């Protein structure tokens, strides 16, 4: 039905889109894996980060430069929010965490609305319209860069988790928070660090997303459901699972969009999501719940 060129191009495009999904999902899965909560404020945080990148751009800083400052900034913000708002307000109860993050997402979205109004804004970076020409397909430069940065971030995160003491502490808390507390790990601190890492990942995602996308006070929500799908597919709490799952979903979405239409393409994602949950809720890529 479609020529091989288009199909190949669709796969490559899906891969590039998938990289952003991966980044957004890594943040989600990290928080889930350690805190065992579903963070309802995930989308709003992404939106906030995109507005931060937008403000930086208005001040003359390219998002790809701004990321150097925004990622640490969002780490600190994420840390603070978990440590001093979500943690204390939720009294450690799952349903309260759910409500607190829900409340936070309402606050974030509407503060953004009050500040920036609801206009959909986009930025025109110098490399915005340049492409990598593969002969049969043009790959948009901003998204190629996004792909590269995602790979770097995933690698850094993996090193952090696997090779550093902080990573060990995070993994210990994820496995058994009581045990971790018994051996002297400061669990609230680890929670906050994890939350901060998640927010930092979102800041990176925001910075690579902005040059090729747009921003308005509700934009983050478009990525949340997909991120959930990716996280479930990759196994809740599994970082490598989220990366592979993100890329996979990107390709599936692209191809099903091509063959079944864009609207039903998203349907395809959710059907996969439901199927995986019903058949193998621990995810396709291992990671025992």
């Amino acid at each position, binding site marked *: 039905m479609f020529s091989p060129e288009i199909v190949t191009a669709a796969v490559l495009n899906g891969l590039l889109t998938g990289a952003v999904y991966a980044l957004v999902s890594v943040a989600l899965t990290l928080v889930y894996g350690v805190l065992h909560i579903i963070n309802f404020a995930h989308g709003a945080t992404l939106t906030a980060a995109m507005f931060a990148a937008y403000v930086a751009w208005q001040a003359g800083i390219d998002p790809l430069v701004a990321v150097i400052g925004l990622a640490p900034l969002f780490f600190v913000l994420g840390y603070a929010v978990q440590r001093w708002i979500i943690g204390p307000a*939720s009294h450690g109860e799952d*349903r309260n965490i759910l409500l607190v993050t*829900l409340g936070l997402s309402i606050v974030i979205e*509407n*503060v953004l609305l009050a500040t920036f109004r609801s206009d959909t804004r986009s930025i025109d970076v110098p490399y915005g319209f340049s492409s990598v020409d593969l002969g049969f397909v043009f790959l948009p430069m901003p998204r190629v860069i996004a792909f590269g940065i995602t790979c770097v971030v995933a690698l850094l995160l993996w090193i952090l988790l696997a090779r550093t003491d902080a990573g060990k502490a995070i993994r210990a808390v994820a496995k058994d928070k009581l045990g971790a507390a018994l051996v002297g790990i400061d669990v609230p601190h680890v929670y906050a660090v994890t939350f901060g890492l998640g927010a930092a990942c979102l800041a990176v995602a925001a910075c690579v997303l902005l040059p090729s996308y747009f921003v308005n006070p509700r934009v983050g929500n478009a990525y949340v459901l997909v991120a959930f799908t990716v996280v479930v597919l990759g196994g*809740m709490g599994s970082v490598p699972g989220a990366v592979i799952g993100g890329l996979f979903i990107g390709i599936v979405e692209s191809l099903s969009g091509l063959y079944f239409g864009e609207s039903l393409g998203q*349907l395809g994602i959710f059907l996969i999501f*439901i199927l995986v*949950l*019903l058949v193998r809720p621990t995810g396709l890529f291992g990671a025992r719940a």
Partner: protein
Amino acid sequence: MSRSGPVAAYGPILAVALLLAMLPVATSANTILNSMVMALLIALAGQGWNILGGYGGQFSFGHAVFFGTGAYVTALLQARFGVNAYVAFAAGIAAGAMVGTILGYLSFRSGLRGSYFALVTLAFAEVFRILANATAFTGGAAGTLVKLDVRPENFQFSSRAVFFWIALGLVTAVMLGVRFMERSRFGAWLVAVRENEDAARALGVDTLKVKIQAITLSAGVTAAAGGFYVQYFLFIDANLAYGTWISIEALLVPIVGGLGTVFGPLIGAVALHGLAEATKAIAGRIPGIDLALYGSLLVLAIAFAPNGLQGLMAKIGRGLSFGRAP
């Protein structure tokens, strides 16, 4: 509560209902009536959620799937097949309940619990939303309009007060039903499932069956809210029917009001509705400020009343009685 007689059990519900029923007599302000109709509608949807989430401990993030099915079936049967509105409304409830049975069978049979169950419901709602948006039969993205023909036999009334009474009647009936459930074997088993599934199974509780029955009931009640929505606004589209807003409202009100309690959803709905109106009145003209305030107050409420408003009131009550003690 376990040994109270029928008067203590059902009396307060009827008393509250009677008191509320006076509202249209006390005020003819349609602003208030409309606002209360919406609050009751959310209370109804939330009571549905409460049956499964509050009593059964199965948190759904996708009750929109039931609300929307109730709404669409009610609307489509009238708009496409000229079915009588009341029949369509009943069919909407049945259809919603059926979707609940199927969804429950699929997910509970696979042993989904906790976050996994929450996510699968979310995904189902999203699938229904996309389908309703893309299918010609549902009117696609343009939605379905019920013909405006204000006659009581069409479940359309010129007076907001009548809608108010109907909504109140539905909420009251469901509250009585939930109280009855609380005092039945099914209710005891459902709570046992929430508290500890393995222990319940050991005591002879068919947990799968109980959960499926609970989600069926739950879905039927929330579907009733959807059907009522259609009769009130005479219009439904995919985002209204299956959007996340109703899933969130439905879970928010019982949690805020008091999870697994008969009055929780009603208290939560009235409180949250009042909060939204109040913040709107305070916030002035900059868009978003009111909702930001609303969100902040929500977070504060959870921080200081973690067991819902009823828990808070109970705490205050205890505090007062301790204070009075010599």
